Every structure is written in structure tokens, then in C-alpha cells.
């Protein structure tokens, strides 16, 4: 940028501050004063000031779950960076995600500390689906008792993992994302990577059957290498109240730096939806059917995991 442009920019900002000062001095609230003073600013900056002022007045939308689309959009660039540069994600089969109506997205789960796999599946849908929409992510309950994480997860579409929540969100025709492995998936040692754990009691199938929602199995490759789990300290877990305490090559040795996920290479594949509309909602009571369907989903994901591991080749380059 040239010097003259720099000066013009500085002057615009000085003008803004002066306007803000007079505005507040004359008895306006800071938000309104900022909005009025912003008229002289360059367009991009003016939009941000206006948006900040509007949000300060509480003039924005949240859905009944506490999802705040503007907030999600504002933090999206960070996840986009992870998606494109850090993990260089290749996503396949997005046509399998229905563009409207309810669907249950079922994925393998890894990466211990933060549901990066959930946010990256969201990223794939938001970036590469022709009709993107924000899914509801069922997040391990523990996240919702932690400061900051609790409302951060909620504002980007996370819900406490509960069959009641999944059923209600499906009834509202949302895309709902579940990780049936739960903590067993995230807390497994590195040596067991990409080996799917038990899929709970198949509760996700019951929910899908009751809501008559198709199941879209998803295989995520790459998430196992971001925090290679070499140990699990039960003492530390008890101390912090966490469901497990990961020990990775970098955590907790490097302190907060150890929280930076390793830049593995990722692939995400969305499989063809499993249509459940042939079963009546009461089929959810049929234990045998629920287990069979659950096993079918598990096998599909496991197969796709191996396929994509081969396609990916080396884990980091």
C-alpha cells in the first residue's frame, strides 16, 4: 500500500474517533455514536463497525438452541484456514448430503481435545455443498460445563449430546451430526487409530428411525494424527473432571503450545444415505433391527476409512 493511501486511511480513522468522541459527548450511547461516526470510513471497515454496533444493541438472531449464525460466520475463516492450509482437506461425496430436510450424519470420532472432526465436516458442507446449511453437532456433554467452550460450541451449532436433542433437531428438519463412538473414539490410543469402537447401544439408529431420517455415514481420515494419543492419565482426568486426559508427544509437555494440532493430511468422504423410510417409526423398538442397522453403518464407515487411508498415502505430506 502506498504512503498516500496510508495517510488517507489514518485520517479516516482519526475522523471516526473524533466523531465517536463528539457523539458520546453529546449523550449518545457508544454503539449509536460509533455507527454515526462510521460514515467516513472505507466500506469494509464501515460494515464491521455497523455490525459491531448492531450486535452491541442485541440486534441479531439466535435460534432456540443458541446457535448464532453471524458468530459462526465470523469465526469460520479460522476453521477455513485449518481446512484449506493446515489439514489440506479433500472432501468427497457431498452430493450424498440432502440439500433440504432432515438427515443424520454419522461419523467416526477422533482427535481428543476439541471436536475438530465435527467442525471440519461442517466446513466441508459449508464450503463445498451447492446448498450449504449449518448442521447441529452433537458434542460430548463435558464441553458444556466448561467455561468459554460451553457457549462457543453452542454458538457454532453444538448441542449437548442427548437423544432428546437429536430427535428434536431432526423434527425441525436440521442436519444432525453424531459420533456414536463418543469418548471411546476420542480417547483411544494411537496404536488403535482408524479402528472403529463400539457404536454405543445404537441409540442414533433409534432416533433416525423415529424421525424417519436418512443416515449419511461419513468417514474422516486424518483426525487421528492431530493429537497422537500415547497415554491417558487417569489421575489427571480425575483431577480435572474430564472424561479422559490425553498425553500426546506435545501435550502436556509443551503446555498450551502442545494444544496446537499436528498438520496431518485429511480426507472426508460422505457415503450414500441409508434410507429408513421403509420402516415405520415403531421399528425403533426392534432391538435386532437397530443393531443390524448400526452394524451396517459401522461397517460402511470402517470400509471407507481403509479406502481413504490408502488414497491419502502418507499421513503428513
Amino acid at each position, binding site marked *: 500500500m502506498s504512503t498516500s493511501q496510508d495517510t488517507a486511511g489514518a485520517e479516516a480513522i482519526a475522523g471516526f474517533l473524533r466523531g465517536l*468522541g463528539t457523539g458520546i*459527548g453529546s449523550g449518545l450511547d457508544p454503539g449509536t455514536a460509533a455507527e454515526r461516526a462510521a460514515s467516513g470510513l472505507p466500506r469494509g471497515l464501515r460494515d464491521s463497525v455497523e455490525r459491531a454496533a448492531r450486535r452491541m444493541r442485541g440486534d441479531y438472531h439466535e*435460534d432456540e438452541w443458541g446457535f448464532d449464525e453471524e458468530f459462526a460466520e465470523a469465526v469460520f475463516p479460522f476453521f477455513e484456514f485449518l481446512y484449506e492450509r493446515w489439514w489440506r482437506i479433500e472432501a468427497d461425496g457431498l452430493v450424498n448430503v440432502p440439500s433440504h430436510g432432515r438427515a443424520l450424519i454419522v461419523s467416526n470420532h477422533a482427535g481428543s481435545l476439541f471436536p475438530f472432526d465435527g467442525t471440519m465436516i461442517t466446513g466441508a458442507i459449508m464450503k463445498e455443498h451447492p446448498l450449504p446449511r449449518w448442521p447441529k453437532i452433537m458434542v460430548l456433554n463435558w464441553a458444556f460445563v466448561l467455561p468459554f467452550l*460451553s*457457549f462457543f460450541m453452542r454458538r457454532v451449532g453444538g448441542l449437548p449430546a442427548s437423544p432428546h436433542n437429536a430427535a428434536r433437531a431432526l423434527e425441525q428438519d436440521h442436519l444432525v451430526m453424531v459420533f456414536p463412538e463418543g469418548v471411546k473414539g476420542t480417547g483411544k490410543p494411537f496404536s488403535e487409530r482408524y479402528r472403529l469402537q463400539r457404536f454405543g447401544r445404537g441409540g442414533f439408529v433409534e432416533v433416525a428411525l423415529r424421525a424417519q431420517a436418512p443416515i449419511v455415514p461419513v468417514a474422516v481420515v486424518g483426525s487421528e494424527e492431530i493429537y497422537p494419543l500415547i497415554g491417558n492419565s487417569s489421575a489427571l482426568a480425575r483431577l480435572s473432571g474430564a472424561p479422559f486426559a490425553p498425553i500426546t508427544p506435545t501435550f502436556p509437555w509443551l503446555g498450551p503450545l502442545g494444544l496446537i494440532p499436528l498438520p496431518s493430511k485429511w480426507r472426508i468422504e460422505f457415503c450414500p444415505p441409508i434410507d429408513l423410510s421403509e420402516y415405520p417409526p415403531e421399528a425403533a423398538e426392534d432391538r435386532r433391527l437397530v443393531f443390524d442397522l448400526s452394524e451396517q453403518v459401522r461397517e460402511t464407515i470402517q470400509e471407507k476409512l481403509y479406502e481413504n487411508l490408502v488414497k491419502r498415502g502418507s499421513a503428513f505430506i
Partner: protein
Amino acid sequence: MAGRRILITGIADQWATELARRLERDPQVEFIAGLDSEPPAADLDRTEFIEADLRSPLLSRLIPATEPDTVVHCGIVWYPTAGKPARALHDINVIGSLQLLAACEKAPTLEQVIVRGSAAIYGCEGASPSFFTEDMARKLPLRTRFQRDIGELENYFETFSRRRADVTCTMLRFQPEIAAGLATPLVRYLSLPAVPTILGFDPRLQLVHAEDATGALLAATMNPVRGPVNVAPSGTISMSRLLRLAGRPQVPIPGQLFGPALSRFGRRGLGAGEVYNDALRLLRFGRGVDNTRLREELGYEPRYDAVAAAKDFAEKSKGRSIVPLPGLGALAGRAI
């Protein structure tokens, strides 16, 4: 049902008084009696005031004598006040309800009992269903004294409704109310010039507009249904957005200090006794309930959803505006 005879307990409570006022206008209602240990603050025309304590054994003679077809129990105290410390709450809520039910058993004219209960029975949890339906009560541990009291008195009412199957028992589970100038600790808290909140938490709230609180109580009195019914607006609103709408700055305080800080306010500014765990848990985790039963079975459609209730509160309480920030204007001027 013409010529109805209605007995309201806890008539000095603002919601009970308001209900009586509305019932007085209804020609179908032949007789209204209000029972409490102190007279209602507002004047009521044709409500007969009976001075009696809910815990008094006299109740078992008083109530059958009024020959009520409906008893509306508004005598549950939600938070400690100057005259009713936390210790007394258990006695009033649990023992009082027990006495009332014992008296109701001896009233052959009785057809329905409506209780102004609390959604506190579901608790406030970080990790719980985002919307509790009526069948989810007691699925989570009852953590606070008030929760256990509510749980206990709900048990008594369930037992009563089994024993007197001819009586329709409605248990209304109210979310906390909101309206500008309402005399409750929560509304006084939200009206502070700067509102302390818990650092790192932003609870999802569902506050019933005062008008809907009365409306739902009236609807239940006129069209009783069996069992529990959640009374809540549709949707939810986060604390941060509510405070922004109301133009009140947030002062985030670390969790451990929040309780003591609020207690200091509690004794003076909020007119409550010590702030107790229920309030703290609500302000940390929030709570949402499902109101389908209220809308479809009880037939009451709330006029305000969670956001509209908050906006109405914000608009009408704006008069007491935020503290002026004289330093900020000068600071911005000086920066140039």
C-alpha cells in the same frame, strides 16, 4: 361449569392477587376465597380474605367449609425474602402443601387442584437436554434444597391425584418470570446498572412474560388438564443478548467469586435473602423447557416468545439507562 367456587392459597403473592382480580371479572365465578397469613397488597373487590397460615392445622376445617370446586395453590415460595428466610422455605413449601392436601381430601366438593409449581425440578445442567419435556423430571439428580422441596411436594400431589381420581390435578412448572419493574430478585438483578455475570458462561434463558404467567394460570384454572405442564415461552435467549437488548453492561466475574459477589448485592439491592444455589445454577447453565403441552393441551398460546419477552422488558426498563460513560468521549477525543 357455572357458579364456580375457587379457593386461592398464598393470595398475598403477586400472581395469586392478579389471578383473583381476573377471576372477579368472570361472571361464571360465584365465589373466590383467598387464603394467606397476610392480606394482599392490592385491593380485591369480591375475594373473601381468610387469614390463615398454610401450616396451621386449622386448614383441614377451613377449606371444606368454603365448599370449593377448585383450589389454586400459589403458596409456594420460590426464593427467600426478608420475612421468609431460606430455612422457612422448606416448611412453607413442603409442610404447607402437605397440610393443604390433607384438607383437600376432606373436601367432597373438590373437582380440581392447580399448583403454581416450578421448572426448577429439572435443574440447571450444562449437559442436559436443551428442552425438558414434562416426563423428564427427576431424571437428573436434584441438587439444591429448593429442587428437593419441589420434588417432594410434586410427589405429594401425585399421590393425592391417585387417591382422589375424581379430582383433576394440574402441576404447572413455571420458568422464572420477567417484566419491567417486577418485584422478583431475578428482575432486580437484570435491572442493575451493570450486571455481574459468570465469566465464561452465557446461559440460555427462557423467561415467562408476566402477562403470560397470569394467562397460563388463568387458562389452567378454566381448562384443567391432568399432570405436569411446563409454563414457558417458545424459544430461548442468551443472557448476553438479553443484557445487550436491555442496554446493561455485563461485568464478567470468575465463577468462584460470583456467588459471594451476588450475595452482597442480594442482601441489599435485590431484596432477596442470601442468593442461593438455584439462582447461581440458573445464571451459569440456564434452562430450556418444551412448551408443547401448554400450547396444545392446556390451549394457552404465550403472547410473548423468549425474545419478545426480553425486548418488552428492555423497552420498558430503558428509563433507568446505563451509567453514563463521561470518560469515554473525552478519551476518544484525546486519542486524536
